[in-house]
């Protein structure tokens, strides 16, 4: 049982390289105590990678190192890496690093009889013992082949050298020039078989990209793809493509879109933090403006925003946005906003991605704006752009950074999506489209939400206008043929006004008529009342008359009796 456990947990001991990204794709570093072959053409970074391995080993892992150079002299090497900010002289003085330049000059050397390379072994052994080195670099050992004639001896000695290095227990890097049909010119891969890393420098469509591939790694799993890497002022960094997984944390915090009115179109009143938003639209539909609104709103809430502009310079962007009342400069001064401008053709896609990654790691933004991504298709085909976007989105999601892309879509007939949009649309969480609505001799802008993952949203196409006070979303105006915009909206409003006026006057007229009717009615009531009153009067007169008459007759009868 116990044995099983230990068996399960066994992992090849590894030496971390300290090269950003390389340790991830090798799952821990180079095989500890074994030689690794790094091969590649001229200028692909072999020497730099191995030097970085040594220096990082000393600085980060306290493992002293020996650099045996067969090509460059020690002062040259020191100079070359000084530009990366590593002070080799200091490390040399502290007895943590030895640089030994082995000069092999054919013209000086005559071979007469049998020999071996014990001199080299002794030199290397002495250097290793002096600083108690754990890491050794032999750069480029193939130079020996050009300096010495007897290949049989050389090959036998190299084989002996590598097994000797293993015995010494040092983690070694051996570099080799790339050969025609083999990985290295002299077939070094025959001798060094534990780990082979191939560096490559390719130019596709006039854009050069450096790539790295682990050809083999005995006894360990590793990333098998070609990984682009970048050499910049901090040395080499590698970006793994597929080592990222979809298990990032999600936030249910909602942040404002920055555009008044647009928030109302989302049930949650904005975007989720950490989600990604695509704003697509044809030329001149205010994509950048909406992006700037978002950046402005974020900065106002003291969130940090990184803005990548692939079309405009920072100054131009600031000027253009100030014309609609957005002051981006204040945010830059306060340190909440950084604008980076670069032409897409400056780098290959991979380098763009690495640059983005570097800047994101340095600035640690809460939100990122990339304006626009569609320009990147000029340096890569849609498939490559998609793969880059996947990696970028994954990276941002891991850090819970909200990202807003804009994308210029070409004018297509009907509703066939643009290829560039199509390539990223399934990746984004929220997709807003701004589009032209043409009609009655004018062009209006409309905005609508195509999708919003995890949030209810309005289905309306909202018209918006841009004034010197900014974006204003107009209320929806529905006419008999659907939503009305621009002049149609005006016409509709006028129509409404007229009909309202008509209605009002009609009402007034009716009112008056009623009043008149009432007057007539009242008048006739009055006359009827008068008539009635006169009738009553007549009646009462009659009654009195009759009473009088009857009284008279009684009197006559009385007098008559008396008389009789």
């Amino acid at each position, binding site marked *: 049982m116990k044995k099983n456990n230990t068996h399960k947990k066994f992992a090849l001991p590894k030496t971390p390289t300290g090269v950003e990204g390389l340790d991830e794709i090798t799952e821990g570093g180079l095989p500890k105590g074994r030689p690794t072959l790094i091969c590649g053409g001229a200028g692909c970074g072999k020497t730099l990678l191995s030097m970085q391995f040594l220096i990082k080993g000393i600085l980060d892992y306290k493992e002293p190192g020996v650099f045996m150079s067969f090509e460059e002299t020690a002062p040259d090497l020191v100079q070359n890496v000084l530009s990366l900010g590593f002070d080799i002289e200091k490390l040399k003085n502290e007895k943590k690093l030895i640089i*030994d330049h*082995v*000069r*092999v000059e054919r013209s*000086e*050397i*005559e*071979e*007469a*009889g*049998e*020999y*071996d*390379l*014990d*001199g*080299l072994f*002794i*030199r290397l*052994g*002495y250097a290793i013992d002096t600083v108690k080195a754990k890491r050794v670099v032999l750069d480029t050992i193939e130079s*020996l082949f050009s300096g*010495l004639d007897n290949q049989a001896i050389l090959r036998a000695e190299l084989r002996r050298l590598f097994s000797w290095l293993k015995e010494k227990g040092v983690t070694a890097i051996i570099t080799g020039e790339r050969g025609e049909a083999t990985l290295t010119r002299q077939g070094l891969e025959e001798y060094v078989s534990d780990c082979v890393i191939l560096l490559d420098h390719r130019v596709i469509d006039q854009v050069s990209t450096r790539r790295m591939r682990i050809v083999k790694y005995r006894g360990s799993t590793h990333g098998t793809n070609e990984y682009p890497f970048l050499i910049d002022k901090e040395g080499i960094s590698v970006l793994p493509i597929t080592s990222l997984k979809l298990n990032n944390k999600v936030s249910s915090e909602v942040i404002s879109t920055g555009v008044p009115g647009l928030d109302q179109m989302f049930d949650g009143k904005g975007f989720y933090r950490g989600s990604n938003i695509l704003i697509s639209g044809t030329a001149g539909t205010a994509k950048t403006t909406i992006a700037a609104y978002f950046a402005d709103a974020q900065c106002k809430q003291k969130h940090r925003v990184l803005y990548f502009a692939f079309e405009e310079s920072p100054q131009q962007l600031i000027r253009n946005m100030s014309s609609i009342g957005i002051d981006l400069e204040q945010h830059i001064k306060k340190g909440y906003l950084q604008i980076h401008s670069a032409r897409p053709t400056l780098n290959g896609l991979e380098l763009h991605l690495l640059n983005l990654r570097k800047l994101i790691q340095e600035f640690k933004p809460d939100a990122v704006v990339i304006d626009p991504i569609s320009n990147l298709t000029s340096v890569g085909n849609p498939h490559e752009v998609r793969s880059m976007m996947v990696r970028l989105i994954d990276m941002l999601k891991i850090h819970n950074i909200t990202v807003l892309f804009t994308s210029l879509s070409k004018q297509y007939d009907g509703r066939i999506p643009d290829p560039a949009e199509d390539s990223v649309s399934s990746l984004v969480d929220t997709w807003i489209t701004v589009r032209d609505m043409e009609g009655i001799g004018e062009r209006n802008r409309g905005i609508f939400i195509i999708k919003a993952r995890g949030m209810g949203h309005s289905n309306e196409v909202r018209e918006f206008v841009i004034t010197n006070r900014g974006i204003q979303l107009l209320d929806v105006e529905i006419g008999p043929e659907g939503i009305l915009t621009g002049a149609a909206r005006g016409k509709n409003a006028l129509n409404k006004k007229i009909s309202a006026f008509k209605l009002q006057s009609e009402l007034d007229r009716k009112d008056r008529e009623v009043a008149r009717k009432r007057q007539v009615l009242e008048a006739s009531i009055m006359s009827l009342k008068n008539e009635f009153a006169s009738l009553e009067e007549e009646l009462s007169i009659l009654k009195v008359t009759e009473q009088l008459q009857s009284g008279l007759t009684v009197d006559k009868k009385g007098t008559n009796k008396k008389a009789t």
Partner: protein
Amino acid sequence: MKKQPAEWQLILYIAGQTPKSVKAFSNIKKYAEEHLKGKYSIEIIDLLVNPKLAEGDQILAVPTLVRKVPEPIRKIIGDLSNEERVLVGLNIKSLVSEK
């Protein structure tokens, strides 16, 4: 040995008393006695004893014979069994033919 520096100063680098180094020493001794009698000195440096010295003369292979003087420095590697090559390498051959 003479007190003033010899006209020919040779250094033989070896790594321990291996058959190759013994052979190399006896060979150079023989050639020197033959062609440079009285005007040479041979110093033997054992790198196992003095590993530090390997760097100075850029020693890779052993045995290596280094001609320090006269300038320029010449190096001959191997057990020196090929006399022709050694003499050409040390530039002794031309001296011999001039005579």
